[in-house]
């Protein structure tokens, strides 16, 4: 390890033992061989000694509780099923996806058992999205954003913005309230934080924005196109494909937006003996804040793409087989542009 770092960084003032345990007489870097704590920040009180407020808030944050994995899917279950799910599925597998303080500040998280190791020596880095967020959100968000799936890079990436230019540490660390899922989190970013569409110079742009307020989300027009969908999820394994799906937001039932397939299927937890009595309560599609924004898309180029050709709008025949009965609620058929009165 960098000697300068040891000397100058307050974190190392007491050597390695305060965090990793064991004795400090050896300087062997390989902690595993000494039976020491490999993931010290699993214990929030450790960082909490000095970062008390952050640690206290973080204990309730979604990244730590992964409560989103529990509260959404259990809406499909009765009480007993939900209890079984919590014991047999959530605590066994979902909890392990949670982030420790170290996952964002010290060591790149392992995905599929592989980690690229410490983020930057053993520095306590403030932010390094490419080595932290990118791994846990590497299934869809990150590669969608950078264009690594061979799609189109998000315009914000083109302009040099990274995750934390929109997302705030406050929202990630949490505010001390135990939210059940991401929609409840305060301080989530929104396009309107930075853009106030409706007074552009170009008339067509202005019309596009003003006529669709509340009717079509920004993603509906500005998502570049195909994004990833995971389906057929069984025991953590799922298949994925690229697709572009427009439909009515299940969140508010009134705005057309990009939708993503939810990986849970009827028999997702069959192996663990958990059934879903109320499976049909939630649809198999959910709002997708896709990170592939472009100024121009085939929809901004053509009003007819939606109003005449209905491109991308999901129709009954395209819904997944044996899906939830609530899926009917996301279907939407746009009408031709009304003639001027």
């Amino acid at each position, binding site marked *: 390890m960098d000697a300068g770092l040891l000397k100058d960084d307050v974190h190392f003032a007491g050597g390695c033992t305060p965090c990793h345990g064991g004795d400090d007489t050896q300087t062997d870097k390989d902690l595993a061989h000494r039976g020491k704590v490999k993931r010290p920040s699993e214990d929030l009180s450790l960082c909490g000694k000095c970062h008390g407020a952050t640690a206290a808030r973080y204990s309730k944050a979604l990244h730590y509780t992964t409560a989103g994995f529990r509260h959404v899917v259990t809406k499909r279950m009765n009480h007993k099923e939900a209890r079984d799910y919590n014991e047999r599925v959530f605590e066994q597998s979902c909890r392990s996806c949670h982030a420790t303080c170290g996952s964002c500040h010290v060591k790149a998280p392992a995905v599929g058992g592989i980690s690229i190791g410490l983020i930057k020596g053993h520095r306590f880095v403030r932010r390094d*999205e490419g080595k932290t967020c990118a791994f846990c959100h590497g299934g869809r968000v990150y590669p969608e954003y950078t*264009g690594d799936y*061979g*799609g189109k890079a998000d315009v914000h990436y083109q302009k040099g913005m990274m995750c934390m230019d929109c997302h705030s540490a406050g929202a990630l660390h949490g505010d001390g309230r135990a939210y059940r899922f991401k929609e409840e989190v305060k301080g989530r970013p929104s396009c309107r934080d930075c853009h106030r569409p409706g007074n552009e110079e170009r008339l067509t742009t202005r019309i596009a924005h003003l006529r669709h307020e509340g009717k079509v989300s920004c993603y509906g027009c500005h998502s570049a196109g195909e994004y990833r969908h995971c389906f057929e999820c069984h025991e953590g394994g799922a298949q994925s494909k690229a697709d572009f799906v427009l439909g009515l937001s299940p969140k508010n039932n009134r705005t057309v937006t990009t939708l993503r397939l939810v990986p849970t299927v009827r028999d997702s937890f069959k192996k663990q003996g958990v059934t879903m009595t109320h499976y049909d309560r939630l649809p198999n599609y959910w709002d997708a804040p896709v990170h592939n924004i472009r100024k*121009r898309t085939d929809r901004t180029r053509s009003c007819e793409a939606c109003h005449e050709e209905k491109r991308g709008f999901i129709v009954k025949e395209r819904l997944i087989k044996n899906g939830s009965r609530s899926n009917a609620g996301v279907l939407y058929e746009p009408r031709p542009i009304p003639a001027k009165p």
Partner: protein
Amino acid sequence: MIMKKRGKFLSVLAGLIFVGALAATASARELEPVVTTAWLEKNLDKVIVLDVRKVEEYRGGHIPGAVNVAYGSWAIKRGELLNELPADDDLRDVLGSAGIEPASKVVVVGKTATPADRVDATRVAWTLIYAGVSEVSLLSGGYDKWVADGKAVSTEAVRPRAKDYRGRFHKDLVVTKAAVAAALGKGVIVDVRERDFYEGKKKLPFVERLGHIKGAVSLPTSTMYEADGTYKAKDALAALAAAAVGADRDREIILYCDTGKFCTAWWFMMRELLGYKNVKVYDGSMMEWAKDPAAPMEP
């Protein structure tokens, strides 16, 4: 309004005079097509350094003054095809927002660790020339060499002043499948994939058939580099090219690979460094060609 119009007229006039001046000097290029880290270090103030690595890599350290537009904004997926050109207006926006104008002198810099890394920069250089930027160069060895040579790096992100990009596109630098089919037996068609691919022993999963376009000659991309990712010297490159396509500088030469990315490396060397005048890229490449059962292939 009138003021504006007159201003425009004057600038058109100035443009005409300028073009005349350029034509008078024999070779318009002031910037060497391939520059070294030593040269670039001394001439940073004369060029726009365009860093095409990822945003986070750029933020971690870059050549002082370099602007960053990551590779993913220069080449897109269209339909089934990877590495295609963005729409003209989108490309103009990308160029303009990077502060690039047709008369800019641009040095494109990427990573060089792997063979795939190395061609990010050449594909972008090709795209700039396609869009009408007149002087585009490559940094031999890329950012990796810059760091290995111990040159200064900066972590200060550069926000370029946006320009309204109005270059004239050289549409003739790209050819379609039909044009390749028409060139069979006439022009020189060059397969830049590695020998095993050319010989039909291997293929990528998204390429439907083994083998190469009928009559194509082989000139693998890997032959142009030294072990450290820098380019071989000009005469070595000239000999390699001549052995594959001959010395006739006017003949039509069409390059292809699997997706239209690797082949931009030899395209750049042939056209910008070695003086072949009629070199084109088949952007659809094997990904498109092999899908058509009627498109002739061998062996």
